[in-house]
């Protein structure tokens, strides 16, 4: 990218090995500021591992990551200030209710209590979580947990949102709502990178995509560059190399 401003997220040579398995095998990635970036990949491709290393939750074996020009591992305070994260498969502080959780996140980010109050109200309202009242987050449904997690990531108005599987477990109404919110966020100058394996969502939302398979990026570019006139699903299956049913299997079903 030849650009005056640094990329919103920049990864160079990220490597992570678990025991004997190479989960991420050297990833270089630039997420341009103001883009809506989709990270695609089959199960176990290394999406979560990559994003965890990008936001400072998992120490890479090699490589570096920058958020808007700030090194995540060398200068974490500045990098994390600009970053909102929705991790996947990670618990929230779920013995708080939704309101308390948002207040907690806001104060943890060093925000002014009055601002926290105002934004928490608004977020609970928009995400239709205000009805949950004092229900503890641990008792929320899976979709509600996703929503409150996203609200937590948005609360401090970060410049970069890193979302791991944000649309999983969401019903169509909530999914549409969140698509809408993210769209406006990007239009307002924010940057989103999210992982998914739902093609339609990615096709509908993203300006850029990268396809990850076996810990390596196999295709990257703007949505149209990657698609080249075909459907994203066809490209994905071809690049990843999936197995197609022949009709002989599972005949006893």
């Amino acid at each position: 990218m030849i650009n005056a401003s640094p990329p919103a997220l920049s990864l160079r040579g990220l490597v992570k090995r678990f025991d004997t398995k190479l989960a991420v095998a050297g990833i270089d990635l630039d997420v341009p500021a103001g883009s809506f970036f989709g990270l695609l990949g089959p199960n176990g491709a290394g999406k979560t591992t990559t994003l965890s290393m990008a936001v400072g939750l998992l120490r890479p074996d090699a490589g570096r990551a920058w958020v808007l020009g700030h090194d995540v591992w060398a200068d974490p305070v500045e990098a994390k200030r600009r970053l909102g994260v929705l991790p996947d498969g990670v618990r929230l502080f779920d013995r708080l209710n939704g309101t308390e959780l948002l207040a907690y996140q806001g104060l943890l980010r060093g925000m002014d209590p009055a601002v926290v109050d105002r934004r928490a109200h608004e977020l609970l309202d928009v995400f239709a979580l205000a009805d949950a009242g004092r229900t503890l987050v641990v008792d929320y449904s899976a979709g509600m947990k996703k929503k409150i997690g996203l609200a937590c990531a948005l609360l401090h108005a970060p410049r970069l949102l890193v979302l791991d599987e944000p649309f999983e477990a969401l019903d169509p109404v909530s999914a549409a709502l969140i698509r809408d919110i993210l769209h406006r966020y990007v239009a307002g100058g924010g940057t989103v990178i999210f992982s998914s394996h739902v093609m339609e969502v990615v096709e509908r939302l993203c300006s850029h995509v990268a396809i990850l398979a076996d810990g390596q990026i196999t295709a990257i570019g703007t949505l149209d560059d990657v698609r080249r006139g075909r459907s994203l699903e066809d490209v994905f299956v071809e690049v990843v190399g999936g197995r197609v049913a022949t009709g002989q299997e599972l005949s006893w079903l």
Partner: protein
Amino acid sequence: MAVTAAGAGANDVGPVRGVRAGHFVLLKLRVLRNGFRGQTSRIVLFVLGMLFGLWFAFGGFGLFALSAAHDSEFSVLVPAFGGAALVLGWLFMPLVFFGVDETLEPARFALLPLPRRTLVGGLLAAALVGVPAVATVVATAGLVLGAAVHGGATAAAIEAVGVLTGVVLCVSVSRAMTSAFASMLRSRRVRDLAAVALAVLAASLGPLQLGAVAAARRADLDQIVRIARVVGWTPLAAPYTAGFDVADGLPLAAAAKLALSALTVAALLFWWSRTLESAMVGSVSGGPARAGQAAGWRGGAVEQLFPRPLGFLRRNRSGALVAREVRYWWRDARRRANLITYSVIGVFLPLVINLSSGGALLQGQSGVPRTPTTVTGSMLFVGTLAAVTLANQFGFDGTAYAAHIVAGVPGRLELRSRIVAYSVYIAPLMTVIAVAVAVVLGEPGWLPVMLGGLYAAYGTGLAVILFVSVLGAYALPDSSNPFAVNTGAGVAKGLLSLAGLVGSLVFAAPFAVVSAVAGDAWRWFALPVGLAYGLTAAVLGCYLAGDVLDRRAPELLAAVTPRR
């Protein structure tokens, strides 16, 4: 819910093969083996556990065999008291120190069509396959040898049956108790009842020990033998004394004792199966929370986070951390269980030690009068034990800690807020304990010394435990049982607690030494000096351990993430 083998074919779901206990044992072994794959630290822990087990097994075997074979009253005393101590150990140790190994978590079987009887039998069989159970069998096998010396082959055979019944009793007692307490502490309604029940249990140890020590001090052998015979008829020691009754020519008594043991096991297993079901159904939380309760706002969102008694806290990062921790110590069943267990033990341990002159016994001589020094000694223990509760404080929250990493919470702030929040509960509790002990002993003048010792030990304990909690954190299973630990983690938990306890006591020792040698003026200095000593240690620990935490926050997160 259950589809039994007998009903197979009726609903046309294909042939069903019966599930036997052996399947559970194989499953446990398989899970155990897979857990070791590439996990060097787990293997090391397991080997350490094995070594401990071996040491216990053969040490116990030798002790039991030699003393039981001895031709004297020992053949009455050792099976009775040794057996009872063993069963009581199985009862209390999981609750206090080790937790229960939930390699096979009951909730995972909820969807399988298994009759309750099969499930309980299987889980029991799986629980029997483990280092502690095997070590217990080997150790008590010494009694078989002893019985053989006294009564020949028949007595030995009966004693062997007793030893095997005994280990089943031990395992079922520990499972039934932890499961019952788990389900009680889970429920919002009866959790206070659970605390009382735990207190009564701990309290019942007192009279037992009182009697034992009193008898020992009078050195009236006949009386001790009489007590031993009574204990031998309780379920605690019945299985272990059966063989010796045969040797004494009382086969009927032996048969009755074995029957009593079997009945006890059956009752325990029935109890376990009842609480097991509740654990399988209501697995995550204690029912829907107070959802309907006042959806209205009390102030803004920030005001809602801060508990009312803590309204004075600053509305900033450290205030929020403290407020959240304070809420968590009560709302999280696992933390609450720890808190309650500690408060019960903290109250009864010093009372038992001091009232029964156990303190004198610990000193190695009997008849020494209680002094401020011995009482302070017990206070040191209570204080460090309070800190040890935090040994796996990061494991309690599990992956939720990720939020702190993402928000970039500095390590020192993190640790400081955690100990401040914990002290909100513990400091008043410790003060109450000290006052209670001083009043019961009738020595209110010792209170400053006791409090000083308590705070000094708590502070130094925190300093040591903060390091343990950052460096030795381990994942807790997402189980509804607050006492549950992962495979091998029981050893880790025990070892870390022990290391923390010893380390803390070492650092607190100077205070005890000064107490012992200083004159009367010490009574006035003890409290401020103890406070200052403890505070300095805690602050220093926070400062140094916070640095370590900053350097290895991601590694800590990985350590507390269950089943990576």
